[in-house]
């Protein structure tokens, strides 16, 4: 693997360079390169099977990429820098520490059912980061209040609606104070009413401006509203990118036009 000699600039929080990924000999990502700037909200659009989710998952190494490099906040994901400055692969503790800086929100929430909503949120800060419990619990309560669940804190996930579970999952990710939040089709498993409550939380987060967000979604109007930049993918490649107006109203690529014609 070739490593770039220079680190990305400080304000580039994600720099993906020529990322390739295959499963069972079937190549899903072809040389995907993308820079995301600090505080930016980037929405990934494209037809099913375009590799949007796969790309999102390579960023925090849930999919270990085969080729290319991904820097997040100045760190090469999945590699450790030795004293001499060379990179060596590390998929254990070091990768775990890198991931603490990246929040991930799943399509199917993946809350931990043996804990209450509140415990889901304070668990990792207390058990893994060893933060003082009283302080972490207090912060967890504030986060749950922020996503509108102040009165459901002691419920277990199976006592919550899908929309409520997804909001807990967002609070859980925020509790780690990540510099980057990744959302993988966060509303695809929800009915329309619940979709709105989750999107409202995400809009609020996007407007606060201090969280960098990358969102895979099929909600075009939501994308228009929150995105600083829309990236369109198809067949495992980046197709085109630009502001919501450029991409949604004046798409350059024929494939983008076909895709938008289907979903708009």
């Amino acid at each position, binding site marked *: 693997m070739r490593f770039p000699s220079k680190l990305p600039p400080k304000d580039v929080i994600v720099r993906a360079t020529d990322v390739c990924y295959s499963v069972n000999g079937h190549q899903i990502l072809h040389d995907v390169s993308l820079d995301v700037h600090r505080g930016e909200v980037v929405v990934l659009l494209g037809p099913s099977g375009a590799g949007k989710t796969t790309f999102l998952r390579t960023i925090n190494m849930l999919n270990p990429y085969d080729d290319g490099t991904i820097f997040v906040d100045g760190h090469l994901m999945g590699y450790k820098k030795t004293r001499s400055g060379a990179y060596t692969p590390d998929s254990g503790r070091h990768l*775990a520490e890198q991931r603490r800086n990246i929040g991930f929100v799943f399509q199917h929430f*993946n809350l*931990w059912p*043996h804990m209450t909503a509140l415990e889901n949120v304070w668990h*990792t800060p207390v058990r*893994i980061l060893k933060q003082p419990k009283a302080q972490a619990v207090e912060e967890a309560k504030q986060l749950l209040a922020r996503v509108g669940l102040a009165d459901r804190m002691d*419920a*277990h996930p199976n006592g919550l609606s899908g929309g409520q579970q997804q909001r807990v999952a967002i609070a859980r990710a925020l509790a780690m104070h990540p510099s980057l939040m990744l959302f993988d089709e966060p509303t695809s498993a929800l009915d329309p009413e619940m979709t709105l409550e989750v999107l409202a939380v995400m809009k609020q987060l996007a407007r606060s401006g201090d969280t960098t967000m990358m969102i895979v979604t099929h909600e075009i109007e939501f994308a228009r509203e929150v995105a600083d930049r829309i990236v369109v993918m198809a067949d495992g490649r980046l197709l085109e990118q630009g502001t919501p107006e450029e991409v949604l109203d004046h798409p350059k690529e024929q494939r983008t036009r076909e895709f938008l014609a289907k979903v708009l």
Partner: protein
Amino acid sequence: MHFDWTFFWDSLFQPSNAYLHGLMLTIVISILAMILGLILGLVLALMRLSRNGVLRFISATYVWVLRGIPLLVTLVIIYLGLAAAGIYKFQDASVLGISIAGSIQAALVGLTLNEGAYVSEIIRSAVAALPEGQLESSLAMGMTRASAMRWIILPQAVRTMIPPLGNQFNQLMKNTSLLSIIGVSEVFLITQSISSATFRTFEIFIVTGIYYLLLTTIWTFAQNALENMFNRRLGIETVSLRTRMASMFAGARAKLSPSSRD
């Protein structure tokens, strides 16, 4: 047919000291072997689930061998076989002032080795039954695989494990009767000696059957309480043994006489 009721009731309600001692030994050995088997089983399961191929191979081979050999054969190899070959002879030893016969030590080793193999399979399949998303969300939050196991995977898998582990313990209590073959004076061996001294074989073995039934029944209640405890922790509604049995019998009744349903 002659059934000596006096002998039967006496044996049931006023068992001799030797009999009570045998019963006690059965209970203590069962509990100790289960605890040790749980520890061994957990180690084997973690080896089997690890990313290290050598550990996985060792664990899988162990389970394959120990599950494929009858417990009785394992026990005889460990106690009589090792001694006959001059490899190791279990000697009576004193632990914390209690003298433990060599045969009991061998029994504990044999039961633990056997139990560990079964327990590890139960743990492994309970972990495998969890949705992949549970591990993924733990990793995404920045846990190592070990932390995810400790905090997220095993606590959930425990709920799935309890019914099969409970059955395993039930089996184990009954399997201790095999220990008579290596001369552990547990309740089965005591029963045999009473039987040959009195020729009241039918009566005394019925008494012993009742005692085994009593032990396994008490355990059924304990297991139900344990399951409910874990259900509450998961926010699942608990089911009392009575309703569980009632629904079981209701189902059976419905099957037997569909016309009498009201």
